[in-house]
């Protein structure tokens, strides 16, 4: 009996000893339920700006550039982007999945923000006005994401067929478990326009060059892009030209160089902030260059994975085998340099547009390839107006020549019809190369392509002439990228895969 008493006493003593607290919360984040103040909402709003600046950064725009007739893949590519360059995409491609998922992840962040913003506005009515403004910004960003997705994963918006053409899911509420239908392209663009409309109700102030926040002008620029892609030329021209006054075109080669290599220009309607601290936020397209400094001869040598095609080089009007041209962009954005690819020394042309903001270089001899994300540029607005005027039978030469003259080129006179359109197309390539527009332009114009290549790199190109002399007719349905298999696997409601891509699951 004594033993048992001992035993029970010791058990009770043991159980009475203290235990650990089990309510453990992370101290590196805030629980969703604790997002209750305007400060949280402001911080989340800045997070959305980060999201857009990151997803739209130039390193993420390379894939659609590799896909068309702008660049040749060299033996230095290490197969980076090779499936795009070689037209070997499949619905299982992980880069395609990453592009799709990243934009939708930003959309989800936006929808979460909108939900929390409503919660906080209800708790703190005094801040309701600010919160409404932030919500307008968020909706605008959502429209950008939907548009970027539509450009890649849908056919060109053709007013006559948009009502039946396939769209993309457009989630507008935070719901991780949603399985949304892709709907029609008409529905997709309706959602984009609805978001823009809500944004412009509250975002009414004009911006200034290199604004880091949304302005009325950024909205106008986006509306011009959307209108052009919707073949709504009247509006495209109107919206585009409304931005000219506040954003004068540059007047010298030096100023043009500053726009790309110091992130400073009167031409930029809106760009993301980029500092030494935030340089990791943006992705840089280093594969156009991969430069290393030669300390002896004090020049950069480049090992590019992708070099501009010969017809691109020709567009800039270089005097033969020099860096000289009237075009200010020649020698600054595209340049004849020393190339060293696969043990082969050559001199050839490379895209130097994205060598990086030199004010942020750690040392001048080491390139970063990090350029501030320019969400909207006025130069594109002139090109939009030119194309829209041409399509509408208006005065296309004036906007085209205005831009040309601010790029060191002579104005064109007396050309019309297809010849004029060809000049507009060429100007778009010269001005927008590397910014990820051409695939979408070709779709809009209903054009295919044929590649060529610079002789300087002919020995070190990747793949066969089937790749570097590739022809793709406009009728090839694969101009529209495949919807990733992950979406089709997880979303029974999604609908059909795009035409031309295997739907084997």
């Amino acid at each position: 009996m004594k033993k048992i008493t001992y035993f029970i006493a010791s058990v009770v003593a043991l159980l009475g000893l203290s235990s650990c607290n089990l309510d453990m919360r992370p101290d590196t984040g805030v629980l969703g339920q604790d997002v209750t103040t305007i400060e949280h909402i402001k911080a989340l709003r800045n997070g959305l700006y980060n999201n857009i600046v990151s997803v739209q950064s130039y390193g993420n725009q390379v894939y659609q550039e590799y896909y068309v007739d702008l660049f040749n893949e060299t033996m230095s590519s290490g197969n980076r982007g090779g499936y795009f360059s070689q037209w070997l995409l499949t619905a299982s491609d992980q880069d395609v999945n990453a592009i799709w998922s990243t934009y939708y992840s930003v959309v989800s962040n936006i929808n979460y923000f909108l939900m929390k913003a409503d919660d906080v506005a209800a708790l703190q009515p005094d801040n309701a006005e600010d919160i409404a403004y932030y919500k307008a910004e968020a909706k605008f960003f959502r429209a950008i994401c939907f548009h970027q997705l539509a450009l890649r994963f849908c056919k060109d918006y053709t007013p006559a067929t948009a009502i039946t053409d396939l769209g993309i899911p457009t989630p507008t509420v935070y719901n991780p478990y949603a399985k949304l239908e892709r709907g029609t392209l008409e529905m997709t663009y309706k959602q984009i326009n609805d978001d823009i409309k809500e944004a412009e109700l509250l975002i009414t102030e004009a911006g200034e060059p290199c604004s880091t926040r949304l302005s009325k002008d950024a909205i106008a620029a986006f509306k011009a892009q959307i209108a052009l892609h919707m073949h709504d030329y009247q509006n495209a021209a109107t919206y585009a030209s409304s931005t000219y006054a506040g954003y004068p075109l540059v007047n010298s080669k030096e100023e043009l160089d500053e726009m790309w290599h110091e992130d400073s220009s009167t031409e930029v309607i809106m760009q993301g902030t980029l500092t030494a601290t935030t340089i990791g936020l943006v992705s840089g397209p280093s594969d156009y260059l991969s430069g290393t400094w030669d300390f002896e001869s004090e020049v950069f040598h480049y090992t590019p994975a992708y070099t501009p095609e010969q017809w691109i080089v020709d567009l800039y009007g270089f005097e033969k085998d020099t860096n000289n041209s009237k075009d200010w962009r020649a020698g600054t954005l595209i340049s004849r340099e020393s190339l060293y690819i696969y043990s082969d020394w050559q001199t050839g042309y490379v895209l130097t547009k994205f060598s990086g903001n030199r004010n942020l270089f750690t040392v001048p001899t080491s390139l970063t390839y990090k350029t501030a994300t320019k969400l909207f540029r006025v130069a594109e607005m002139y090109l939009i107006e030119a194309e829209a005027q041409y399509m509408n039978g208006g005065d296309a030469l004036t906007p085209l020549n205005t831009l040309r003259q601010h790029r060191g080129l002579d104005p064109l006179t007396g050309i019309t019809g297809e010849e004029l359109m060809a000049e507009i197309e060429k100007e778009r390539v010269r001005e927008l190369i590397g910014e990820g527009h051409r695939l979408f332009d070709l779709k809009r114009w209903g054009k295919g392509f044929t590649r060529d290549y610079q002789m300087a790199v002919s020995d070190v190109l990747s793949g066969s002439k089937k790749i570097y002399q590739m022809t793709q007719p406009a009728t090839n349905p694969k101009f529209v990228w495949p919807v990733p298999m992950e979406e089709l696997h997880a979303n029974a409601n999604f609908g059909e895969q795009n035409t031309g891509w295997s739907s084997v699951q």
Partner: protein
Amino acid sequence: MVKKIVLSIAAVLFVCASALAQNKQISGTVTGPDGKPVIGATVVVEGTNIGTSTDLNGKYTLSAPTNGTLIVSFIGYTDKSIALNGKTTIDVALSEDTENIDEVVVVGYGSGRKVGTIIGSVDQVKADKLEDRPSANVMDAMQGQVPGLQIFTSSGELDSPSTIRLHGLSSLSASSEPLILLDGAPITTGTLMAMNSNDIESMTVLKDASATSIYGSRAANGVIYVTSKKGSRGQDNAVVTLRAQYSLNNPLKLRMKRMSTDQLLDYNAATYAAWNGDDYANPRVVAAYREMLAGAFGIEDQSVNVDWFKEIMRENAPMYQVDLSVSGGTPKTTYYISGNYTDQVGIAPGSEMTRYTFRANVDSQVKKWLKVGMNLGLGYQKSSNASTQSSAGGLYTDNPIFASFLIPSYQPAQDENGNDLDFLSFYGVENPKYADKWYKLLGNRIQLNGSAFVQLNPVKGLSIRSQLSANAFDYRSTTSMSPSWPTETGVQGVGSISEGFQRNYDWTWTNTAEYKHTFAEKHNMTVLVGHESIYGNTQFFSAGTKGQAFDDLLNLGAGTENIGLPNYSTGEYAYNSVFARAEYDFAERYFVDGSVRYDACSRFGAENKGAIFWSVGAMWNIKNEAFLSDVKQITALALKASYGTQGNSSIGNYSQYQLVAPSSYPYDREYAMGFASMGNPYLAWEKQSTLTIGANIELWRKLSLSIDWYRRETTDMLMPRPLAPSAGFSSYTSNIGAMRNSGIDVGLNYTIFANKDWYVNFYANFNYNRNQITKLWEEGLEKSSLGDGTMMYYIVGKPFGSFYCQEWRGIDPQTGDTLWTAADGGTTNNFDEAVEVDLNKSTQAPFSGGFGIAVSWKGIGLNADFAWVQGNYMVNNNLYFFANPDFLGYGQVTEALDYWKRPGDNVTYPRLDVPIQFDSHLIEDASFLRLKNLQVSYTLPTHLLKNQNILSGFKVYVSARNLFTATKYKGLDPEVADGLGAFDADNYPNTRQWTFGCEFKF
């Protein structure tokens, strides 16, 4: 601090060692049944603290009261007591203890139990299998030793942990690693790897519910109980052991051969011809293209033919290991103190490790009713890694493993002056042989494993014990890029470095009360109750700077600017548990036991924090029945069964919470935050139940056989449930799936021959494990892809990692096209029309085991241990790169030369202009049989050491690890794979080692 600890330990030892009373001198010799002296037998005077142990000649001397009684004991022999009655010389002959030959095993909490009386399924591996091994990784020596325990040393990197699986994979999202306990306290695999294997007395693998359920929420994958060495009570003639060994490491034999320059250029030329639509079967066409290509590539000297694998990989990479231990004890106190130094170089450039460990284990019976003890292990490990996938290299061309095949043979290794090149211009990266000069991946870890206990025995049979354990380590990592990093045309000129600091610590406080009692001589019972609290904490931060201009000033403070903001994270978890266990047996014939445990864990949602786990078990020891007592041939026979539940809580600390976290980047100088995690507030334990039925038999005391059948059911399995990417997420973790592992373990041990001079023993073990997914996230969902590009599906009724993909059906002999299975079951040469097919192959090996033999003759010993697995498949991802004409300009392997040239060719590779696809041709049988360890040793006979009293034992040995591997797998090493166990791409292979060692005992 360390100094203080050492001093206090020294003081404790000093106090304990003095204190022997003065009485009459008694001496004598203790012999065994064969008349030979018994070394190390304990001789104590009954009822006192006086005692000693016998020396190498079986002799003892002690002072004892003349009317006292001596008790002589030695493990495996029956205790003998002799009244002194004034005699001063007492020789004792011990007889073998036929009842008590089993050793003690710790099962659950509480005191140890004799092996034969344990209901649970347990396997013990003793020090002799772990000592003197040529690997610094203790788990490597465990491979093939325990039926059902699969161990893969999945990287040749010296500090990387092995993969441990008991009875297959039981979880997809939570960990499948067993719970590892060091002297009762949980430790990580990494901590075990960083220990000195010579400090380990035994590793006990607890496999069934009866043995593991008492560990509750952490026991779903079994338990490995590691016992560190202790001194022996009363052994006042301390044993000092000095061991030294030297090993040489070399790459395993290659089954893929690099193409020579000649082969490669012809292959490239033929490819080029094919792309241009020319007849590449015509040698003249190929020759013309070859000259064209050599010109285009700028290959000046076609006689350059470098074997880059040999060039990059180190040969005879050395390893030194020295350790010194002292163990002994007084009648009241035991101690074991050791120190170890290991220095090892791996075969891949940059792979190095240096380790120092110290251990002091002391316990003392300070009062008749009070015992205290403390185990303390300290370690410091410094390592440097090769830039392979396991560290940071990834699938990059400068990964040395990858590069050793992909660098073309015509890439010279030296410049015209005979100096090794810094930059390889045909390959486009710095010379991987010296990559560690410019790209450093360093880490160092200081670890402490300590536990202290107090044990009270207030009344006979009752022991109350409180143990507090602390396991902690600090890990510092450094990654640096040197400014002299070579480029095509010189050097980078600017360096960068980042430093990380991680601190992990956890406390485990365990309080138990155990009561053992025997009623009416035949009813034995044990009851145990306990409480346990565990608290764990992890902290991490890292920072980086860049702009360093000098190689010798490559430190965090020598940069010119920061690389972003520093990273910071912390994590905490805690468990509170109570448990109880009861055991009963009748006359050691009929045994039953049961346990129950309640666990609450911080990692789960508020509604699901707590859970109860329980087990029941029964055993019938038939040998102890009267009807078998006369059957001399059967020396042991028992049947047992157990059933119980366990849990798995190895998930993230905060997976339940929806989180918003600070962004690493301010926007426009303002604070920014982002959505970080969707969280699942309903997250709960992964539950498991295990049913085990087993039998073991021993014949003639020589041949023992054990068979266990088990079935483990995992339910509420944590699984990533796919979400539509368009909703913003790819998946979330939820308790949705179910999985089953069922199989049998067979263990066999046969002492073929044992006499005065000879000892021959053979062992073998075997496991069959059938892994099946039994439920996916939706009712009726039969299969789902594991993710595109993996070639694997989850399929209900099939093992995890089942290959289900486009099936390669060979090369059409007429056209040279690759053929795949088409929708109608026939073949197609269009990959887009190829359908996914269930290949009935999986990454999980259904069969595994090991066998070995130990032979000794008069001090000469031979040990051979083999380990094998059979029936698992792996993607030899290397071949996608090493046998693919698209990789023009890179090195290739000779296998790719078997390509189609003309109609009628029966080959394995298609026409050269047909792209190689990622399909089933890469899936290879990864079964292997490996001679894990071969050791020949010589132990000096004791009679040669008679005439001196310095040395008491001497042994020399030579051993080899991975000396030979039989496999069909063509990659570098069938044992290595990625986390899924499915892909072998650029993995760092294991090595073959020769070791020479010697051991002195003083």
